[in-house]
């Protein structure tokens, strides 16, 4: 009886030990954060895993830029995707938990304001009108299109936008309302941009803001509005050319990944970042974002290899940064 028990226990222990060594063979890279950057991460993760023939698993989540940073600063993820730079309070949170990071810009996005193709009266919208629609004071008061501009129909607007954990939300509110996170609260909010695309597409009174990579594949189901900055330059429709030329303002924005120094010590993370910096631009074009100039990737790669810590944005929200601007700045921790 005792001998049987001993034999059984040792078998279980052996199985457990074998199991743990087996699972130690597959390495994981945990990525989370912005749903805007998600298409890039997903494409890169797919290609990378193919390259590595299943030795490395890459998981990509879409908790939103803010949600991703919360996890990142608790040490739960290796890489955090951001559609806006890291903020002061997030940097403090990371510092509190001993997480140091390397910031790397990877692409530019043209934040798109979209309506249903059945919408015949809108081709262009000014930032001033957008502010009238989205500012906190509009809640409960600016409900119909005619409340914004008497020339527009007296129909109730169906508003769609990013949720409070989203970097797109932070950037749009900063650019349009002048203050990050300041917004009316009565709209359909979701961190999942696919929900927003479905909503806008199916509602003829729909209006919402989504990343360019979620608009471009659905060009026949959505209509992008031209943006009039109000500086007399007229309407500019979102496109990669407009972003490169620097005319799509203020809704052209850089996208980032943040790699923690602890993760950067892992060989698979280093290989993933190398892969992203070299094969990334082609993938970024595929998912319809604007890649940075090759020199920018070389610089970012070098910063990673040197372990240049910190952010070039000082932890405050910024609007209207151009590609060249971005590359010239010095990092501050």
């Amino acid at each position, binding site marked *: 009886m005792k001998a049987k028990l001993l034999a059984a226990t040792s078998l279980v222990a052996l199985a457990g030990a074998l199991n743990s060594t087996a699972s130690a063979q597959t390495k994981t890279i945990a990525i989370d954060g912005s749903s805007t950057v998600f298409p890039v991460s997903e494409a890169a993760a797919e290609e990378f895993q193919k390259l590595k023939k299943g030795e490395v698993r890459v998981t990509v989540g879409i908790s939103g830029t803010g949600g991703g940073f919360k996890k990142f600063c608790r040490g739960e993820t290796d890489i955090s995707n951001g559609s806006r730079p890291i903020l002061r309070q997030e940097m403090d949170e990371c510092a509190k938990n001993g997480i140091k990071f390397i910031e790397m810009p990877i692409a530019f996005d043209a934040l798109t304001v979209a309506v249903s193709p059945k919408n015949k009266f809108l081709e262009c919208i000014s930032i001033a009108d957008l502010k009238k629609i989205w500012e906190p004071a509009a809640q409960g008061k600016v409900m119909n299109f005619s409340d914004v501009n008497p020339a527009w129909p007296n129909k109730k607007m169906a508003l769609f936008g990013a*949720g*409070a954990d989203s970097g797109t939300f932070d950037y749009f509110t900063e650019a349009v309302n002048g203050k990050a*996170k300041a917004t009316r*609260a009565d709209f*359909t909010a*979701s961190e999942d941009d696919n929900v927003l695309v479905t*909503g806008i597409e*199916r509602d003829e009174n*729909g209006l919402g803001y989504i990343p360019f990579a979620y608009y471009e594949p659905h060009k026949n189901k959505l209509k992008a509005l031209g943006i009039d900055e109000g500086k007399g330059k007229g309407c500019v429709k979102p496109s990669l050319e407009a972003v490169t030329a620097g005319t799509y303002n203020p809704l052209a924005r850089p996208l980032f990944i943040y790699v923690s120094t602890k993760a950067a010590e892992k060989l698979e993370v280093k290989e993933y970042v190398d892969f992203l910096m070299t094969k990334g631009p082609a993938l970024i074009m595929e998912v319809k974002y604007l890649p940075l100039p090759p020199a920018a990737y070389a610089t970012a790669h070098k910063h990673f290899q040197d372990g240049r810590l910190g952010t070039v944005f000082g932890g405050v929200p910024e609007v209207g940064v151009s590609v060249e601007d971005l590359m010239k700045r010095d990092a501050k921790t």
Partner: protein
Amino acid sequence: MASALTVGERRIQRLRERAIEFVLLVSAASSVFVTIAIVAVLIYESIGFFSSVPISEFLFGTTWTPLFANPRYGILPLLGGTLLSTFVALLFVAPIGLVTAIYLSEFASPKVREIVKPILELLSGVPTVVYGFFALLFMTPFLQTFVPNLPGFNILSAGIVIGIMIIPYVASLSEDAMRAVPNNLRDGSLAMGATRLETAIKVVLPAATSGVAAAFILGMSRAVGETMIVAIAAGQQPNLTIDPREPAATITAYIVQVALGDLPHGSLAYQTIFATGLALLLLTLCFNIAGFWLRHKFREVY
């Protein structure tokens, strides 16, 4: 004749009986314990919530925006969404479920019943997330062809699909209740010259009211707790309205939306999950009590 067992063997047998009884008691009690544990967790986390938010604001406030700056915690929009979707589902399932039950119990031949009943059960086996996408991608465009200005996310489409989902529950249980009505009632009615339809509607159905009411209450409890269909197809914008053509969020859809994001433990927004969960639990409890009372009131003993 001498006893077949010794005193010692009899004692062991008694102990074994007691042990088995104890194990069975624990199994039965475990379900009670789990329920108590769930309620305890909900109440414990909600206490933290209600120490920051007055109950009056929670129960009577008409705006629910806990995740934005300037958070407001009035649960009425979520409650309204839940009740509206349940009401639409009930309106849809009542005629269809009852007619199906009447047909299966009074008119269908045993062969037909053998085929139709299992197929009906299949409807209840479809995962609710599949129903959700069915509502979003099929039901809504279908409704948009004859309902003017129907937005892409709306309660009407979600409510109808919830109704489709609970047809098996309502039809099956109602049919069982009707079949339990003794045949002499039917025979008496038919002998008096009533048609089969008249017998079914005016004699059998009233006699089976207790069971039919129970079936409906079960279906309603299912509809109140339904999560994925409303999360996918009804939109996630809390909206206090009685018009099912508008998008609205239910309590369950809100909990899912918040759970998919990322909230630090112990924050007020995190505690809203438990406060709303508690509200949902109490709502379901009310329905169950109502169902129990209804069944008791209409119970007929044959």
